[in-house]
């Protein structure tokens, strides 16, 4: 179904090959910019070698996990490539992740080393159970010294099947689980996406998403593959987002719908000015038509590209702008060199327009979840023709040209503010709150925000505050209701239809 050649997407390359190839080709091009400064590819590569040496000196070797909870800064990009060089595994966790989940992640990942911001060292040491926890400032002083003398490690044997990164993500379980991301599959996914998006050497990609999220992580790799520059932005600059986008000369801006809404709100209070943005790439959820139109009005000439996927294979499909008018409701076609189609309950492929589960095959399908054999076996099943078939849990259909259409899910998993989560994990956090006897969560729907219902002795606002201490911001519901008893179905499950009615009845 894919007209594009797959010649460009390799399966046997390493994550740091992307950096080394970019450095060889254009050493003096800008590679990465953050709030504090800028590095060329040559400088980034030199720093990544210094990280490699530093890790070696600390005894970090093949397969050791290095857990980092750091904001989006250049140092983190160097840590990513340096850890890859070492053959070790980077475990980037969201800075918004609270102790409640972080403890479980540390237990599951068993890191050999943890690097966090200096103020967090004491707190993380307390939950890291004897693992060395270091502050970035001190770590970076040592790495900068190694970089100054152009230090090189004794080298490490790294192959495409070796794990480069563990990406923790939410699923149908209460605790986060990690998708295993080996070098070869990460590079394949990167290059296949690159073929569809076409990043160029003159592109400046404005990344407002954390590198702990695969959306941000792959932007780092995509910009290296495209010889482009990445600008790392965090929440501190949200009020001046438009100005930053203009000042940095950004040409590509990855978005989720809530970020697009914010950009439109900011654009309304400023007269239209010049911008270089040529492309917005969306993921996380469908972009409302009004938001897409708002973006095009504020950034004349910019395209909005639809994408669809999940960490388990990085990306399922992209809808190139050329097909926007012909297939406005599609979430795109499978990445070049991969397959995505729809099957029935027995795993038999369904003809076009029939609804079933979307499954994915190809060199971008990751090998499974870290230390979770049962969940791995359920989600990553053997494909009839060899390799793995990823069962996405997403339901939809394909058309006669093989383009995908997403319809929804049938489990407890949903997306909010672009982030995947489940009712299970929010309900688990809510019942952890003192005073809550039982809790139920209603996923967001058109015209209805994510809502939590609790039975117990607690103020609904206090419940949200307590949840914000246990969950990262995107997972905190917008609506909270305290009820006498939670409505149950005849089967004893949460009656979500009744919950929706309660919400509508109480709505202002």
């Amino acid at each position, binding site marked *: 179904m894919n007209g594009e050649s797959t010649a460009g997407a390799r399966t046997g390359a390493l994550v740091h090959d992307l950096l080394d190839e970019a450095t060889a080709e254009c050493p003096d091009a800008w590679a990465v910019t953050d709030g504090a400064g800028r590095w060329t590819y040559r400088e980034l590569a030199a720093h990544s070698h210094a990280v490699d040496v530093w890790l070696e000196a600390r005894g970090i070797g093949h397969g050791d996990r290095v857990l980092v909870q750091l904001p989006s800064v250049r140092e983190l990009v160097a840590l990513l490539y340096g850890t890859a060089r070492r053959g070790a595994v980077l475990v980037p966790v969201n800075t918004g992740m609270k102790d409640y989940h972080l403890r479980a992640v540390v237990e599951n990942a068993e890191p050999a080393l943890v690097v966090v911001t200096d103020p967090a060292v004491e707190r993380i040491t307390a939950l890291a159970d004897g693992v060395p926890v270091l502050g970035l400032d001190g770590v970076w002083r040592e790495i900068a010294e190694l970089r100054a003398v152009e230090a090189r490690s004794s080298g490490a044997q790294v192959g495409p099947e070796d794990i480069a990164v563990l990406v923790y993500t939410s699923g149908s379980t209460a605790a986060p689980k990690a998708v295993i991301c080996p070098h070869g599959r990460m590079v394949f996914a990167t290059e296949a996406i690159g073929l569809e998006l076409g990043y160029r050497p003159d592109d400046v990609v404005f990344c407002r998403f954390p590198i702990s999220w695969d959306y941000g992580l792959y932007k780092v790799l995509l910009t290296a593959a495209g010889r482009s520059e990445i600008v790392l932005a965090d929440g*501190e600059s*949200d009020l*001046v987002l438009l100005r930053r986008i203009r000042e940095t000369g950004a040409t590509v801006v990855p978005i989720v719908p809530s970020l697009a809404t*914010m950009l439109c709100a900011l654009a309304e209070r400023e007269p239209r000015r010049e911008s270089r943005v040529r492309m917005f790439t969306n993921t996380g959820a469908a972009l409302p038509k009004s938001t897409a139109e708002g973006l095009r009005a504020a950034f004349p000439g910019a395209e909005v590209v639809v994408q669809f996927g999940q960490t388990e294979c990085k990306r399922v499909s992209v809808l190139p702008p050329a097909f926007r008018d012909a297939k406005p409701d599609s979430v795109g076609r499978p990445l070049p060199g991969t397959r995505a189609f729809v099957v029935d309950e027995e795993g038999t492929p369904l003809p076009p327009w029939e609804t079933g589960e979307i499954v994915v095959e190809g060199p971008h399908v990751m090998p499974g979840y870290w230390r979770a054999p049962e969940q791995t076996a359920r989600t990553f099943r053997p494909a009839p023709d060899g390799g793995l078939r990823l069962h996405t849990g997403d339901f939809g259909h394909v058309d006669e040209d093989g383009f995908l259409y997403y319809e929804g899910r049938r489990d407890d998993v949903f997306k909010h503010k672009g982030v995947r989560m489940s009712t299970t994990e929010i309900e688990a956090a809510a019942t952890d709150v003192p005073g809550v006897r039982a809790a139920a969560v209603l996923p967001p729907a058109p015209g209805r925000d994510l809502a939590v219902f609790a039975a117990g002795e607690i103020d*609904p*606002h206090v419940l*949200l505050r307590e949840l914000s201490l246990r969950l990262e*911001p995107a997972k*905190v519901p917008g609506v909270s209701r305290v009820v006498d008893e939670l409505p149950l179905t005849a089967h004893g499950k949460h009656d979500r239809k009744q919950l929706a009615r309660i919400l509508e009845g109480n709505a202002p």
Partner: protein
Amino acid sequence: MWDEQFEQILRPFLPFLPPQEELTPGTELKDLGLDSLGTVQLLGTLEETYQVHFRDSALTMDTFRTAGVLWETVESMLQRTAG
């Protein structure tokens, strides 16, 4: 202290604050549930209601850290307009 209108505008952006609980000038708005999108929308609402324009130098998260600091910023703009 701020005028009534200011608190009326602010409260809907603070989902963790029970209606019967007092809004104190020093409490971190983030701890009361003000997020990035809320901050941007709050900015637009304040500008529209008070007919003021936040200067670029005031567009930092520090300005929106507490109700006290935010009101001071709004008030100083109102005084400039009046003067």
